[in-house]
């Protein structure tokens, strides 16, 4: 298997020599992971953009690891030359999360940062963008955090139509609504 | 006394005729478009249903006095213009003849603008930015098509030394020819200008849905919209009849009138189905190129 990862190895070496405090991993074909402390993210992104030919930015995502009290920010880059996806991962503390603003490197990051600020409450100091992006008049904790329970929120905000309680088999009742029997073809779908 | 009553009755009948024909043409247009688009389409009396429904809707919008006056202006203008257009050739015994006097063609050219101006006032009052933009576009486009249209009319007036529509019609009857053959350039210029007058695609920038919602009428619903639809239908009849009278020798009876006007009506309809919409400045440039050129040629043709 190792022999097939030639270009990945090359990228591995390049990053290894350029940065010291990072953990590198070749996850699979065309995917290289970089675990970096948060102050190294911007230098890595810049280095990848200017030196390694990672011209375009693919994705910025945020994962809530509530059991470790951490948010994980994932920057995914893609190089048109080597066709390798580079994942730059960093962990920031969950209480008072602050991350460096990187939308000067790729302006596209602007949109992602707006979303992550709204959905996770991660702050990006020095970042210009409208506060409200997707939600309107939201007063609870940021909704994509894992400690926000959407079902609780739903049951206290919205009214459910009766008959919508969970784990009920209504197929039989629907079929018998006008007095008819369940046809044979439908019987095999009903839970016996 | 008797004659005045008779004339009033004739005028009313003419308005009804114009409304009916205009509405049916609208319905037929929708049907034609539907057939071209592979559809069955609505019944051809669909526009009547729409208008009756709109009149029966409740209207509870108030944006100031001019907003209520706008549609009234529009329908006044179209009925007044209708009064100056003779429906049939010669001494029609029933249909309203027209309020003809020498110079009525000039008056008509003015009157046809009046309706749009009234609409513009009404739409401007509503405070909807889409209306305001639609009005601006409408007036710009009017500047575009009015010039070739007026030039073509001037060419006819200069060529035949009359400023009356009946005068022009009489000349065609006497010389047994159509003016579209006597001065073809004037006809071409006028027909190209007519494309703009109908506000069908590609010149539907005034009420382009994808750009300015529906432009001037975006705040008008219910009865107002019904009034505007009626005004539009009557106005379509006025325009078509005027063109038939001036260029195609008028009509001796109603059937001839319908055939001639419908043939003329097909030009903007079919051109509209197959064309995307111009932008405002592109539309004006369009009118100021070939139509204007033909207008100039028509005047030169008339003078020499």
């Amino acid at each position, binding site marked *: 298997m190792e022999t097939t990862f030639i270009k990945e190895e090359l990228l591995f070496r390049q990053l290894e020599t350029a940065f010291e405090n990072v953990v590198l991993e070749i996850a*699979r074909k065309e995917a290289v992971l970089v675990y970096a402390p948060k102050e190294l993210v911007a230098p890595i992104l810049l280095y990848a953009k200017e030196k390694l030919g990672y011209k375009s930015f693919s*994705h910025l995502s945020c994962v809530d690891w509530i059991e470790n009290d951490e948010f994980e920010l994932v920057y995914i880059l893609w190089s048109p030359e080597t066709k390798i996806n580079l*994942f730059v991962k960093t962990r920031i503390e969950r209480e008072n999360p602050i991350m460096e603003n990187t939308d000067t490197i790729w302006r596209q990051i602007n949109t992602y940062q707006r979303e992550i600020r709204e959905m996770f409450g991660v702050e990006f100091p020095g970042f210009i963008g409208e506060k409200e992006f997707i939600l309107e008049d939201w007063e609870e904790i940021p*909704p994509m955090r894992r400690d*926000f329970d959407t079902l609780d929120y739903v049951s206290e905000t919205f009214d459910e139509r009766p008959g919508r309680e969970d784990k009920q088999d209504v197929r039989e009742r629907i079929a018998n609504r006008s007095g008819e029997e369940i046809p044979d073809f439908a019987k095999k779908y009903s839970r016996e | 006394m008797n004659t005045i009553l008779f004339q009033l009755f004739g005028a009313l009948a003419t308005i009804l005729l114009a409304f009916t024909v205009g509405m049916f043409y609208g319905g037929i247009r929708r049907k034609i478009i539907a057939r071209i*688009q592979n559809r069955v389409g609505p019944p051809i009396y669909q526009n009547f249903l729409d208008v009756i429904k709109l009149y029966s809707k409740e209207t509870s919008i108030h944006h100031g006095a001019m907003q209520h006056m706008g549609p009234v202006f529009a329908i006044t203008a179209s009925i007044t213009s209708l009064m100056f257009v003779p429906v049939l050739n010669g001494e029609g015994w029933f249909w309203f003849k027209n309020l003809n006097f020498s110079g009525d063609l000039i008056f008509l050219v003015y009157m046809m603008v009046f309706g749009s101006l009234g609409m513009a006032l009404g739409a401007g009052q509503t405070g909807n930015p889409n209306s305001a*933009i639609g009005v601006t576009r409408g007036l710009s486009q009017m500047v575009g098509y009015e010039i070739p249209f007026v030039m073509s009319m001037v060419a006819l007036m200069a060529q035949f030394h009359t400023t009356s529509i009946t005068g022009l019609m009489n000349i065609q009857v006497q010389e047994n020819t159509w003016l579209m053959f006597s001065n073809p350039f004037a006809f071409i210029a006028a027909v190209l200008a007519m494309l703009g007058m109908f506000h069908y695609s590609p010149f539907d920038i005034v009420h382009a849905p994808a*750009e300015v919602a529906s432009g001037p009428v975006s705040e008008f619903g219910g009865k107002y919209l019904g009034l505007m639809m009626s005004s539009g239908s009557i106005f379509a009849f006025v325009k078509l009849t005027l063109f038939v009278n001036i260029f195609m020798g008028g009509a001796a009876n109603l059937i001839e009138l319908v055939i001639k006007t419908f043939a003329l009506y097909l030009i903007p309809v079919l051109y509209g189905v*197959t064309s995307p919409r111009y932008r*405002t400045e592109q539309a004006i440039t369009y009118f100021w190129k070939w139509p204007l050129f033909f207008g100039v040629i028509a005047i030169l043709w008339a003078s020499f």
Partner: protein
Amino acid sequence: MREKSTTIYLGPQHPGITGNMMVKLQLEGDTIVKAQTHVGYLHRAFEKLIERRNWMQTTTILCRFCVPEPDPPEAAFALAVEQIEGREVPERGKYLRSLVLELARIQSFMLWYAGQTGSAGLYTVGQWSVGDRNYVLDLFEELTGGRIYHMYIWPGGVRRDIPEGFEDKVLRTMDYIEKRLDDYDRMMFDSAIFQKRAQGVGIINKEKALEWGVVGAPLRGCGIAHDVRKDNPYDAYDKLDFQMGIFEGGDVWARALVRRFEFRQSISMVRQIIQNLPSGDYLNKMPNPMKWTIPAGSAYGKVESVRGEFGFYVVSDGSDKPRRVHAKGPAYVHGVSLLEDVLVGQNLADVSFIMNSLGVCPPEIER
């Protein structure tokens, strides 16, 4: 202070807007001096809901990410899950996936024809193409059971095999559509007015495209060769013969040419797939859906949709539910910040025209 600028809210209720979003425009005359997008009218909290569903149940949600093209999200998610799990897809499954993806592209191209011409006031082409699109949807219905939402692509393959006589139907439909394409093109691309409207409008140059991360047809319209199907081939695309449509200019016209070219490529690809369809299994053996767990890990799966690269970042913590699923649709890139930038200096008449050519589809922006 200049007082003469007017503010127009294009949407959320506006016939010109592509979907349910809003663009706030400041106009001077007919020229836009400032544009601001407002999204979020379609936020359904999909990513939150997925965290509450198990791996199998996500398929019902995935296809609803993007309404005009429901298949690329399914495929991208399946690719990501297969990368984490190391699950192999049988050869026939790969071909069937490509078949569905290409058919989805074809129906989406037809919807694009309608949007692009309808926003320019030429409704006839749209009526034709959306009417003919029903024939493609019929194929979908026969294959998957649904007209719009298919839930057909599963991690490990596809849900069911093609029915009997399906190949013939596909080929006949392709013949019909190819014949009709000439009609559309004669009406649309040969129209002098359309050319005038499209050329030099909504220009995105190469530098801007890279800076904003533009994907798909808009990127190929500025002369940059990038297509996920070529660069990181997935499914059966490495065995199919096709070309990218690359045109210079970066305006609406260039994007339209790209799509016109790729439409025909898609048709030819569907024919190739039908001709080379291998036999065998279509689905790798699945565990019991209620007990299906995915090992911990993360992956980014991406596919090419009509509007561009559609990606899913999937994180699993080893349980029976996804830890995090984050979608990146082409409209997410095109429809928010880039649109604000591109619209400045354009004519009001071209807003919806440009939005259609960029493929702005709000459901995948806010999810």
